[in-house]
Each structure stands twice: as structure tokens, then as C-alpha cells.
């Protein structure tokens, strides 16, 4: 993989991009792309070449709205064992986070994946609820575990979301003029490249599926710049060493068997049609939404406000960079996060704060 960091090739690509005299805005939707951009200082180099790259709704924890976080909190308060990814622990619900409820005695455990949670349920008398979070990269893991006949005391609070409908929402809202999109390598590993084609056909947006090494991103941007220059709009695949046009059929089948699409709200967005995944009724006994309907209904239907002054919502629609938020690095830091974009390791505020302090880039951290 080291060769995907080849300095000479990177320098050449940047040189070519600079020669093109560009003035374009691109979007990607992946925390790992943002990490590569910031960690290697590519964002600044691209900007010098007239290329502004925004992170859109590509942070699963960030796009999870407060009413969903609050459901996990409420189950924990009622004595259910909650198994969640570490990234979710400090995200604020209405007033508290999972961490806060844990401090008050809630049985909340961090897991690396759903299999750990299933094991936990096998060893427990208590009800265990796994908070299913993430895009098409993690959704098939939840689907596979649900289809493998987990114990009766195991269920999933299913907040998985799928990416293409959110891209449609961004394009249809029309708030930001995008000259191209860098599509997420690992979501594409599952879904393939075909589900993005509508964006090029219907909205004229050039697209490249890219990997996560610096050279992958640079090449991806270069391929986009070429398309833009030639007046073309198609989906190209830079990450062919992992992504196939048809995706991963085993994973897609598991998702199809376990989930049906549903209309859900994303933080910063209105309800996005068919962008959520609901557990199919055949697996209903493992669907926490059904199992704990009485506890969850009031929480789910309540009104929630976003944290005061937090611009996360605009950030997720690509309208703002983290440094443009007045709270960034002042009231809002990773140890005192105001919004989810500063909590999640995939959030643009967290990533910016990690690599830039006081205008200085920290390469070693």
C-alpha cells in the first residue's frame, strides 16, 4: 500500500491540477476521505489549485438525529443492556449522552461489531440491544447477524442509513453548486458503482469512486478535473482493486433479506425518502423498535432542538467548513463537544481539530 503514497507521482498530479486553472467545488461523503485530506495536508494543496473539497453527510454518527440517540438513552435508563460503537458514547441526545447515562449506572457497553453484542446476549439474562449505526459498510454486518438466528434476548435498534438517497437530496436541494463528487470507497465496495449513475445522468455531476490513500484521492480529483474539462459526467472507478461495478452480492442479499427501506430524517436534512433501513417483519422479534414500542414511542415522537449555535447541519449539507463555525476550537473542542460533528472520529469538526490548531497543522498526533 505504501506505493499509493509515492511522493513523485503526487507532486506530478498536483502540478497537472495547478496547470488546469480550476475553480471548482467537490464533495465527498466519507470520514476517512476527510481524514486523508486533513492528515496529509491535501486540502490546502487542493485549495491552491482552485479545488474546494467539502465533506457532505458522510459521518453516520453525525447524521443520526437526536430523537434516535434519545431512544438508545431511554432504553438504557429503563434497564436494557445497550451495546454501541464507541463513537456514539458522547453524542448528545436531548440533555444526556450514553456516557452520562452510563455514569448514572446504565448498562452500556462499547463493542467493535455486532458479533460482540450477540455474544454478550448469549451470556446474559438481560435484554441486549445493539445500536445499528452506519451506512452500507456496516449495515450488511447487522443484517448477517440478524439472519444467523441470534438469541431471543437480542435485538437491534436499527438506525442504518443508505448513501445514494442522501446524494439525491443534496443534488435536489440545490444549495451548493457541485462540480463533481468523490464517492466513498467502502460504501461502494458493497453497493458497486451503478447506484450513483443517476447523479451523472440526471444532475450532470461527474463522479469518481476513490480509495483512501493520498494518491487515491489525488487521482480521483484528477479524474474529476479531466471529466469537467471534457464536459463529461460519468461514474469512474479509481478504487478498482476493491470496488466492483456490481458491489458485493453476498452483502447486498443479506441487506435485502433483513431490511426494507424506510423514510427517515437525517440531522441537517428533512426526511429523506427511502434512506433508512427498517428490520423486516420476518425478523420482528429482534427489532428493538417493535419489542420496546411502549418505551420508545414517546421519545421517538417528541420534538428536539439542535445544540445551540452548532452548525453541524449546514456542515453536513456541505455549506460550511468546520473552521467557519464560530464555536470551533473555542467553546467546542473534542473534550467539550457541542455537536456530533466534534464527537465522532468521522465528523469534520473532530478531524479538523485533530490536525489543525491555531492555524498550524499537526502532522504527528
Amino acid at each position, binding site marked *: 500500500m505504501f506505493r499509493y503514497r509515492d511522493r513523485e507521482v503526487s507532486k506530478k498530479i498536483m502540478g497537472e491540477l495547478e496547470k488546469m486553472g480550476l475553480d471548482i467545488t467537490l464533495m465527498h461523503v466519507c470520514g476517512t476521505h476527510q481524514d486523508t485530506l486533513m492528515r496529509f495536508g491535501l486540502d490546502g494543496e487542493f485549495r491552491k489549485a482552485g479545488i474546494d473539497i467539502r465533506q457532505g453527510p458522510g459521518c453516520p454518527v453525525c447524521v443520526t438525529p437526536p430523537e434516535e440517540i434519545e431512544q438508545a438513552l431511554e432504553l438504557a435508563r429503563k434497564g436494557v443492556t445497550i451495546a454501541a460503537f464507541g*463513537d456514539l458514547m458522547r453524542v448528545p441526545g436531548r440533555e444526556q449522552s450514553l456516557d452520562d447515562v452510563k455514569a448514572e449506572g446504565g448498562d452500556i457497553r462499547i463493542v467493535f461489531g455486532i*458479533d460482540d453484542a450477540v455474544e454478550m446476549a448469549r451470556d446474559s439474562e438481560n435484554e441486549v440491544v445493539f445500536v445499528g449505526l452506519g451506512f452500507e*459498510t456496516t449495515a450488511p*454486518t447487522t443484517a448477517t447477524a440478524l439472519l444467523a438466528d441470534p438469541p431471543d434476548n437480542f435485538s437491534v435498534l436499527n438506525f442504518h442509513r443508505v448513501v445514494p438517497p442522501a446524494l439525491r437530496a443534496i443534488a435536489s436541494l440545490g444549495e451548493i453548486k457541485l462540480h463533481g463528487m468523490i464517492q466513498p470507497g467502502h460504501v461502494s465496495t458493497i453497493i458497486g458503482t451503478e447506484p450513483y449513475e443517476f447523479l451523472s445522468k440526471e444532475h450532470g455531476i461527474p463522479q469518481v469512486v476513490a480509495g483512501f490513500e493520498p494518491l487515491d484521492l489525488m487521482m480521483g480529483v484528477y479524474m474529476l478535473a479531466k471529466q469537467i474539462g471534457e464536459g463529461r459526467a460519468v461514474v469512474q472507478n479509481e478504487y*478498482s482493486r476493491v470496488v466492483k461495478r456490481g458491489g458485493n452480492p*453476498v452483502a447486498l442479499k443479506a441487506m435485502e433479506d433483513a431490511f426494507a427501506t424506510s423514510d427517515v430524517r437525517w440531522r441537517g436534512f428533512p426526511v429523506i425518502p427511502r434512506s433508512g433501513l427498517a428490520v423486516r417483519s420476518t425478523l420482528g422479534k429482534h427489532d428493538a423498535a417493535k419489542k420496546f414500542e411502549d418505551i420508545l414511542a414517546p421519545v421517538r415522537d417528541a420534538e428536539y432542538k439542535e445544540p445551540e449555535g452548532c452548525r453541524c447541519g449546514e456542515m453536513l449539507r456541505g455549506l460550511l467548513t468546520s473552521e467557519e463555525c464560530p464555536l470551533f476550537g473555542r467553546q467546542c473542542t473534542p473534550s467539550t463537544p457541542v455537536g456530533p460533528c466534534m464527537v465522532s472520529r468521522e465528523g469534520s469538526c473532530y478531524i479538523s481539530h485533530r490536525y489543525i490548531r491555531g492555524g498550524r497543522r499537526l502532522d504527528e498526533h
Partner: protein
Amino acid sequence: MCLAVPAEIKSIDGTTAKVDFGGVMRPVNISLVDAKIGDYVIVHAGYAIEILDKEEAEKTLQLFRDILAQEDAGA
């Protein structure tokens, strides 16, 4: 977050494989891929979601070089 670096499969027992993450051995679920020992896999949330195609990896690098060589020739 996406673990961008592929891990090598060292042993397989049913749907569980032991993979090497740069010196650290971890079990991963391989239900979603048709993997064998020696394959490099992309791992998410404890599951291998795809196998790295080593030939394609080489081809992509060669493609980068070719494109840039063309630019040089055309400039």
C-alpha cells in the same frame, strides 16, 4: 471509521478468520466474502467486506504512471 488498510488472513475456522493488522492478530467474520488464507481483506466492524484484488492494485498504479507519462508527452 473505515479501516482503509487491508489485513492479511492467516487462518480460517468456519466463518471466523484470524487476520494480521500490521502485527496485531484479530478475529474477523468472513461470512460476506469467499476468502482464503493469504488474501488481503477490507475489514469493517469485525467483518471482512471485500478481498483486495492484487492484480487490479498493480494495474491502477501502472495506470497512474501511464496517464502522467502521457501528460508529459503532450505538454
